[in-house]
Structures are given as structure tokens and as C-alpha cells.
């Protein structure tokens, strides 16, 4: 499942270490590691803090403040010893953080490279207050529903007709800003046929909460059959399932429309 997209020869040693695959796979793999290590570090550090706070509580007899170490009102501030311990901990945390992030950087390079043009399906996404329009390579445009084949990378080119939006399908771990006058690109591959939800992730006005679209992942052959029947003619056709929500959302648009 994972390795299909990977030019395996390019990084023969790292292919096992650096997650490559669908966006869902790379996210989950990295997130898991971060969650595990994050929890571990958190528990160790917080545990150490709590243990010592208890151990050196006033009256426990564990702490001792010598006369020469005693803090005196009006003294010039200075520090305590313990620098070696401080730097040891600091370097350890630095190694953890830097190595973790460097590791994810290799995956970032993979994600940024994206799928090859030959195999991917290119869809243009345009946000507007408050919905999404999708345009396929043959010029077919739909509003509120994105149909894609399973197991094939989908390359999205995203922009907006009005304000700043952000297009994201959280379950498929894909997201990108929709910026006026700019185009951003991102991609995803869906493993499982099914229905997912795309949402807007940047506050964009009254209808922001309802600015969603259906993402229908179809088995490849079904998709091909559906796609063969589309033409550029039925531009801006909105499928019946989306009609209602589009009507509701249009009431949220501001009175002044550019």
C-alpha cells in the first residue's frame, strides 16, 4: 500500500524509515511517533517536576539552605550552580527535537514533490462564500460534490472567487489555503471508497460553519463510467444532494456582493 508511490531506488536505505504513501498514511505514521515521544517526554519531565517538588517541600528535611547560599533581600541577582545538568538536559531535548523534525523533513520533501502528472487526476477547486466548485480536466464543473477514484492520486489546484478560504478534507489529511489572486497546489490519494467531507478551515464569513462539500471516493471503474458521461456543458451543475445546502448557505451571504 505504501510503497507504490515511492521511487524505491532513490532512497534505498530510508524507504523503510521515512513514511511515504498516502497523505493519511504519512500523517498517521508521523503523528503516532510524535504522540508517543511527546507523551513520554511530557510524563518524564512533569513526573520529575512533581517528584522533586514533593521531595523538596518545605518541612521534608530534604532541602537545605546553607548560610552562604541563603538568599538575602537586596542582594545583586546571581545564579546557582548546576549548569552542567542544565546543558545536558538542554542538549538531550535539542537532539530529540531536531532529529524528529529533520526526520519529518524528508517526508515533507516527498509530500511537496507530489505525484507525477501522468498518473494523477487534476481537479481545480474554487472556494466561494459559502461553498466549493470543482472543475475536471474535461471542463466539467460541479458544485458541492467532488467525485474521485480510489487509489489514484488527485492533484488539486486551489483558489477562491472572493475571500480567503482553506480547503481541507480532514479524514484524507489534505488541506490548502484558497487565496484571492493566487493558486496553491496539494494532492491526496484515497484508499477506501466512501463519502468524506471537505470543509473550510479559515474564517470566511457568516456561512463559514456550513461551508462544506461532499467528497465521494468511487471504485475506479465506477468513476470512469461516471466521468465518461460528463461534459463541459453542464457547468456549475449542482447535484441534487447539494442543492438544499447551497440554497441555505446563500442566505448567509452579505447584502453587499462585489
Amino acid at each position, binding site marked *: 500500500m505504501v510503497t507504490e508511490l515511492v521511487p524505491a531506488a532513490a532512497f534505498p536505505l530510508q524507504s523503510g524509515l521515512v513514511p511515504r504513501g498516502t497523505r493519511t498514511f504519512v*500523517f498517521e505514521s508521523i503523528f503516532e511517533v510524535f504522540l508517543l515521544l511527546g507523551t513520554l517526554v511530557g510524563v518524564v519531565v512533569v513526573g520529575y517536576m512533581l517528584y522533586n517538588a514533593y521531595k523538596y517541600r518545605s518541612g521534608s528535611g530534604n532541602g537545605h539552605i546553607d548560610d552562604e547560599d541563603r*538568599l538575602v533581600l537586596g542582594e545583586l541577582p546571581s545564579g546557582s550552580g548546576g549548569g552542567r545538568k*542544565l546543558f545536558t538536559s538542554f542538549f538531550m531535548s535539542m537532539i530529540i527535537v531536531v532529529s524528529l523534525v529533520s526526520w519529518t*523533513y524528508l517526508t515533507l520533501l516527498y509530500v511537496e514533490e507530489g505525484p507525477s502528472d501522468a498518473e494523477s487526476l487534476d481537479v481545480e477547486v474554487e472556494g466561494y462564500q459559502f461553498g466549493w466548485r470543482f472543475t475536471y480536466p474535461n471542463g466539467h464543473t460541479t458544485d458541492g460534490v467532488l467525485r474521485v477514484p480510489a487509489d489514484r492520486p488527485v492533484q488539486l489546484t486551489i483558489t477562491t472567487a472572493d*475571500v480567503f478560504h482553506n480547503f481541507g478534507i480532514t479524514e484524507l489529511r489534505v488541506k490548502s489555503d484558497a487565496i484571492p489572486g493566487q*493558486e496553491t497546489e496539494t494532492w491526496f490519494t484515497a484508499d477506501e471508497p466512501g463519502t468524506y467531507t471537505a470543509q473550510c478551515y479559515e474564517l470566511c464569513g*457568516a456561512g463559514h*460553519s456550513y461551508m462544506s462539500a461532499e467528497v465521494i471516493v468511487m471504485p475506479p471503474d465506477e468513476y470512469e463510467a461516471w466521468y465518461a458521461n460528463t461534459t463541459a456543458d453542464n457547468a456549475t451543475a449542482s447535484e441534487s444532494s447539494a442543492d438544499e445546502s447551497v440554497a441555505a448557505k446563500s442566505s448567509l451571504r452579505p447584502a*453587499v456582493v462585489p
Partner: protein
Amino acid sequence: MTDASPGGDAAADGGHEVARGGDDHDFPGTGSIKRWFVTTNHKDVGILYIVTSLFFLVLGGVLAWLMRIQLLAPRALGEGILAPVAYNQAVSAHGLLMVFWFLSPFAFGFANYVVPLQLGAKDLAFPRLNALSYWLYLFSGILFGVSFFQGGTFSGGWTMYAPLNVPTFTPDVGASTAVLALVLFVASVTVSSVNFLTTMHRMRAEGLTLRNVPLFSWTILLTAWMMLFAFAALLAALLVLSSDRLLGTTYFAMESPAGALLWTHLFWFFGHPEVYIVFFPALGVMAEVFQTFPGRRIVGRKWFILAMVLVAIQSFAVWMHHMFLTSINLQVKTLFMITTIGISLPFDLMVFALIYTMLKGKIRFTTPFLFVFGALLLFIIGGITGVFLGAVVLDYEFRGTYWVVAHFHYVMVGGVTALVGGLYYWFPKMTGRMYDEFLGKLHFAVYFVGFNLLYFPLFVAWETPRRVFDYAPELAPWHQLATVGGFVLGLSFLIMFYNLFKSAFVGDPAPDNPWEYATTAEWAVSSPPPLENFDGTPTYRDGHLEFIDDGEVAPSEERSGGPTGAAVSDGGVTASATRAVTADAELPTAEATEVEGPSHASIWPFVLSAGAFLVLLGLSPLQDAAFPEGMVGAAYATTAVAGGVVTLGSLVAMGLEPFHGPVFEEGEAWPFAGIDNGKVGMWIFLASDVVLFGGFLGAYVFTRVAFGWTGWEPIPSDPIPGLVNTYILLTSSFTVVLALVAAEKKHKWGLVTSLGATFVLGIGFLVNKGLEWQHLFHEGLWLSTNVRASTFFLTTGLHAAHVIAGLVVALYLTARAWRGAYLEDSRSVEYFGLYWHFVDIVWLFLFPLFYIL
């Protein structure tokens, strides 16, 4: 909100009652209402800041409750207690109020109160400007409150992304008012930054080198530097936005090339340093309390300071990590990923330093320590979850979700937790009474449970998009838990308000130093401290704090703190100002200082701020530079004019008012030793002005590059008027130099003539500019014609506004010089000259950029 008001009364009652006898006959006691309107004393101002910020905490908290109630369940359209736009307003106002009107002012309440004490100063360098900062802050908050009643406040989120922030999409007048309220707030912050930086660099006690400054003061110093530059960048963004909203320029319009991207750059260039601006003071409180209660000095003190300095500098180089999903390329992403990870590492060091400081101590779990200890725990969680966001691949998916919300609440409200600890820590010092320890601990317990109940579930429900109230149904239980936590957290403050209110009246009297092992100077004076802080001059020359009897100070060392603000005690005609100079020159004995001791009262900061409030309120309904039709428009216009008169009048009154800054003997003043406070203040202010113009020029260059540099035809096709104006301004810089020379030679008419010539040249510049603009308008070009016209009119308009402000001062100086001022003390002329040269230099950049290239 009534819960917060007791704090105010409490402060009033328990405040530092003891004005030194005979110091100020017209300075009322703390029980008098009048005192709180006229005071310029840093401790009073600190208390005002704290009490006011707590009001805004309650307001922002109530808005948060409304949101949490709405989020109890996923809401279909029309369900829930808030309509969609109302929800967006609540989200936006909650963010803006908490970040701007609560967090920073709360921290700066402590800074006001404690920093001069820790430095050994009697007050801030410019006490009236300090009062002005407070009143501008209060009135900006009131203006923000008014915006709710003008058709609805701003609803585009605290990040105010373009183009949702322009009237095309957010047409309510209230949205403009909210932006103007922010402008006023930034004015307050800038005045405050200049004041704190001048004070902290110039007015430290002998022996208190920067290395030796206590950590809380260190954090405030770094915060003030970051504020100076970051808020100047925000001011640039806000002025451009105000102009888009009120005058009709098109920087951020939907059609503008890269307008939306421009906003994200301008906003986040401010926005990321802002994170540290609100967090550093909390870090300072942690550092103080982590030393006092375990009774141990901090581990690795100099590394701790170095880490903070690095963060403060680097904070200006990480802003694009908020923009990983915009169209920036991989190289830029890589760079900003590296700087982001880089800026997180110094915090690791600081956290470990705090933890190791506890070791081997005798930790007393008092309320301040509990809060600060809890804050560190929360900050650790906030920090770890922040590393997730530093990994760009993860950030791609977390962008715009509750992961971000949960993370920054752990960090920022973690900071609030430390500041609440600070409130308990310094409460005895401020009121002279102890709070109830049991209730304090109870508050901590409820607070800590409520906090985690509120914010931790948000990590679990991270897939919820931000600012959305229709979310996946399976996430509902987590949101319900969070809502319960929100109420627990909010209600826990009732315990605090009750405790502090009651204790301020009937708490046990606090000794000078209620905390064993506290070391900083504020604990060496009475609780509350006397009006001028110390009996005697504090010094650390023998390695520890000592007070020298004022009488022992050698007369030659006595110096006045210099004029406050633009022009006071300049040896002019006002009787007391002349006397001040005489006293300084001839009778610098302790007795004379007593008579001519620093002033503590001025009503003008209050009046000036009220005037500024009216101006901005009056301007708020403008669209395309026109008031609305009819009575409403006329009423607004009248308000603006009245406000203008009040503002200008109070500026003049403030200039004429005899007022003396704190008298101090120069101790440690690196790196400004031997330079007058007023001059240092002017330089620091100009540094922020450089960033303001930098923001405008950056916006121009960015827009032009997006448009296509060579395809952009300069709007004034004829460069001749601009060239003439260049010569006029250069000549006027020359006449200002002549004016200073004449003043130093005590040549009255030379001074008057040179200042007058400067004024006439400035008028000539404006007339020439007016004719040029008239010509352009005649050609059919207007601010809203296109983005080329917008950038030209607005940027050169900002410069013209600087010229006009300079001319107002020039006119004032000329009139005073006519009556014989500035011959004894030419400093005001010198400071005006600095400003005027700066304005000329800016023009030398504008002219080629807008007329030639």
C-alpha cells in the same frame, strides 16, 4: 462584570496612602476619586492597568462562555444561542480582547508597579506619558465596546484576514470602529514602550548594570523592545486597513494583486513576536517566584537571559510558519521551519533552568508558587504540542483546527496562570494586606482543574475546524467536557475576586517583605511603598542594596530627569519651569529638591485620550472618505471635530503645564549614559517610526512586485512637484539646524526667524503637495481608482501627516520662542530637530520610489 469592580475599590482603599508631606499640595489621597483621574504615579497607573485589564478578562470570558454554550452540540443553521454572524463576532472579539486588552495590560500593570522599584527609580522617565498610555488603553477598550452597538463589531477573527476585513465583506460601522480601537491601543503601546525603554536603560540605580537587573525586569525590557517594533508593524497594517475601510484605498481588496497575502505577511510579522510579548512577562513572574519560594537562586542565570535575548531577536524571523499552506515555496518553508525549531530550543533551556532551581530548596507551596508551578506544567504541555506544529507535514493537517486552539491556549492561558500567581505575589505589596491563603489555594485547585477540563479535550477533538459550530457529532462529548471546564475555570475567578476584595479591607497587615527569601528591591520598602518609592537614593555600589540619605548626595551629581514629553521645563515663560532651572543650577540641595520635587498630577493625559476617542469614534462611519447622509453623519462629523479640538487643546495644555519628571541621579545607564532622557525617548520613538514607514514601503514594494514591477506606471506622471518638495524639505532641515545654533547662542531673534522659516517651508511643502494632489484628482485619480493610486496617496499622505504634526510643534515652538523660551534650555528645539530630520529622510526614500522608479 461586577465581580471585577471590587478589585478597583480594594486597590483604591489599600493603595499607597502616604504621600510625603508637603510634596504635592494638590495631589489628592488614594481615597479620592480625583486622584485616579490625575495621577501620573507609576504605582497608581499599575493598579489602574491591573483593575481595568481584569474587566476586559471578564468581558472576554463571557464571550468565551457564549461560544462554549454554542459548541455544546453541533448546531444546524439557526440553532443555538448565537446567530452565525454573532458567533463570528464573539470569536473575533474574544481573541482581540484577551490578547490585546487583557493579557498585555495585565502584565504591564505589574511592570508599571514593580519595574521602577526593582530598578531603584522613583517613577518612570515620563510619568505623564505613562498616564497617557493608560488612558489611551482604557479609551481604546471603550471604543471597542462601542463597536458592538454600531451594527455589530468586527467579525473576521482576531487575525483579521483580508479581504474579509474590508467593507465589501464586513460592512458594519462597528467593524471599522474595532479596527480604529486597535489603532488607539497601538498608540498606547508605543507610548508605553518608549517610556519603559527610556526608563529601563537610563534610570537604574548605581551598580545595577543590565546583567544585574532582576529577571522580571529583564523580561519586561525585552518585551518592551519587541513591542516597540512589532506594534509599529501592526500599526502599519492597521493604518492601511483603516484607510481601506474609511478612505476607500484598495490594498486588501479582493481584486488587489496579492492583497490577501500582503495582510498575512504584515499581520504575522507582528503576530509572532506578539506571542512572546504576552508570554515573556509571565516567564519573568515564574523566574521570580521560582527563586523566592524554594529559596534558591536560578540555575544558569546568564544562560536564561541569553536564551530570552535570542528569542526576542529571532521572534521577528519566524512569522511565515503561520503561512505554511499559502503559496510560499519549499525553500522558504524550509528556512522558516528551521528558525521555528531554533526559537523553541531556548525555551527548553528556560524550562529546565526553572525546574532545577527548585531542587535542594525548601519549597513553600503558597498560592503564588502553586500558580506558577501549575503554569510551568501547562507550558510544558503547550510546548510539546507546539513541536508537533513545527513539523511542517503535521502542521499541514493541524492548520485551522482545534489542535492550534488547544496549543496556544495552553501556552497563553498558561502564561495567564503565571500572571495570576504574580497578582497573589505582589498583592501584599500593593495593598499592604495579606490575601487569604486558604481561598488562594482553593482558587488554584478549581482553576487548574477547570483549565485542563477546558483545554485538554480540545486536543482530542482536534479535527474540529476553528471558528465553526457545526462539527462532527462524534466529537460532541469532548466539546461538552470543554464547556463544563470553561465554566469551572471562569467561576474560579469569583473566588479570587472575593478573596482579594475582602482581604484588601480586612486582611492581615502585610510586612515590608512577607516572603522569606525574596531578594528584589520592591520588598525592601514598605507595603505599599511611599509615593516616591525610597527614602534616600538606592544604590548597589557595594554589591547589595543600600539607601543613601538624599542629603549626602553631592550637589554636582544632582540632575533633573529632563523634560517629559515634547516640550516642558524648557526655561520658557511659565514661572515654575524657570524656577526649576534655577533650582537645578543654583540650589541643588536636598531642600531645593524637596520643593521642586517631581510632579504627580496632570489631568491632560485623560483629556487627551478622551479627545482621541472622540476623533476616532467620529471617523468610524466613513466609507470612501465620505460621512453617511443626514443627521447621523452630521453627528459623527461633529464628534470628530469636537474630538480634534479637545485633542489639540489638551496637547497644548500639556505642553504649557509645569510638570517635572522624577529627579534622579544617573546611576547605570548603558548604553545611553550621559544622554538626556528626552533625547533617548525621541530616538526610541523614531526607531518605531522607521518600522512604521518600513511597513508601508514593504507593502508598496510587495504589491508592486505582485503587480509586475515594470508594468507599474508611477502615479504622479510628473516628478517635478516631488523634486521641488525634496528641495524644500532639505532647506527646512537646514533652518532647523540654524534654530538650534541660535538657541545655543542665546540669540532670540535668530531662533524665532529660523523656526519661523522652518514653519513657512513646511507650509510651502504642503501647499505644493496640495496643488499636486488637486491636479491628480482633476485627472480623475482618486484613492480608490487603483492600487497604484492607493499606495501613492496613502504612503505620501502618511508622510504629509508627519509633516503636519511637525508643523504644529514648530508653530508651538515659534510662539514660545517669541516669548523668550529655549534660550536657557534648547533641548526642545533639539528634539524637534531630530524628528524633523527624520521626516525629511523618509521623503528621500519616498521620492525616488514613487516618482522616479
